[in-house]
């Protein structure tokens, strides 16, 4: 499966990658802001995107909106420290597949990946 990680924090990207089982051989790409994330989304065409909200250049809200405009069926999991109720409602309205709070556990990430695999058949 192709997985795109969009987060401005290198530490966050590393921690998330560490939660993804290496033996599953997923193809993983990264982006460090929303604008880069959007470009990578277009070129890499991921099956699953993990997206942070609080990012410079283009935040996660705008990135999610633009991704969904490009591909309404895109599966985007928002992984964020911004756990305000209104933020969660906003991204759900924008079409996020689900919202996970930082720090996620490996179990939660693996469960999410498995759900997406079942959904997409990848």
């Amino acid at each position: 499966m192709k997985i795109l990680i969009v987060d401005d924090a290198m530490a966050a990207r590393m921690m998330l990658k560490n939660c993804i089982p290496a033996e599953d051989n997923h193809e993983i790409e990264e982006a460090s802001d929303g604008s880069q994330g959007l470009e990578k989304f277009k070129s890499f065409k991921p099956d699953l995107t993990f997206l942070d909200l609080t990012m410079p250049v283009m935040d996660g809200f705008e990135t999610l909106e633009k991704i969904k405009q490009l591909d309404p069926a895109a599966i985007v999991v928002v992984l964020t420290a911004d756990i305000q109720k209104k933020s969660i409602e906003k991204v759900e309205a924008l079409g996020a597949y689900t919202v996970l709070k930082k720090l996620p556990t490996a179990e939660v990430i693996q469960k999410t990946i498995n759900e997406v695999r079942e959904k997409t058949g990848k």
Partner: protein
Amino acid sequence: MNNEDTAGILSELELEILQEIMNIGFGRAAADLAEVIDIFISLSAPKITVIEAVNLIRYVNTEISELQTCSIVEQPYLGEAKGVAFLIFPHGAEKEFLSYFQDKDIDSLESDILIDLEKEVLMEVGNILIGACIGKIFELLDGLITFQPPRVIIGEKFTDHYIKGSFSEDDSVITMKTSFSFEDRDVHGYLFLVNRGESGVTLKKALNEFWEKQNAT
């Protein structure tokens, strides 16, 4: 990332980890406040800077315009790390905060009572944001800290009151800064955590232990 350590206390990775931890801490803080006063708070990516104490005022003045007139909620914390949290708002923010708690009796209050009330509200907002943020940071780092009561100071007293009295020329400080704004009001602010350089050793150890734990999953 734009984190920086000119004093050589934290490595690049440690700075990155601390930045993400601050991100999580302030995310929690914003959620707590948003629940109390039913607003949406727009957040930004935090910035970690380690500098010599002698450069702190110049640094803060660069990061925050019109510091002299700002209202600042100051709250020291002690324990495995020692520092002071400063929640900085432009002048006038306290009136905006009070409007969130508006009731029919407020307009009839005398001005000196109103000023006290504005200060109280500012302190309470500070207490919520600072407490939740620092609490979460040190929870993630398995550290125990305690807080001293918050108080409100004006920006021009920041230099005299805190900086001149608290640091020697040899000290380094670790600053963690995040900015935020309230969606339906013209209110924005900054949270600065200033840790004495001696906390750097404790922080380094805690950050590395945190990292090892995360990578052990």
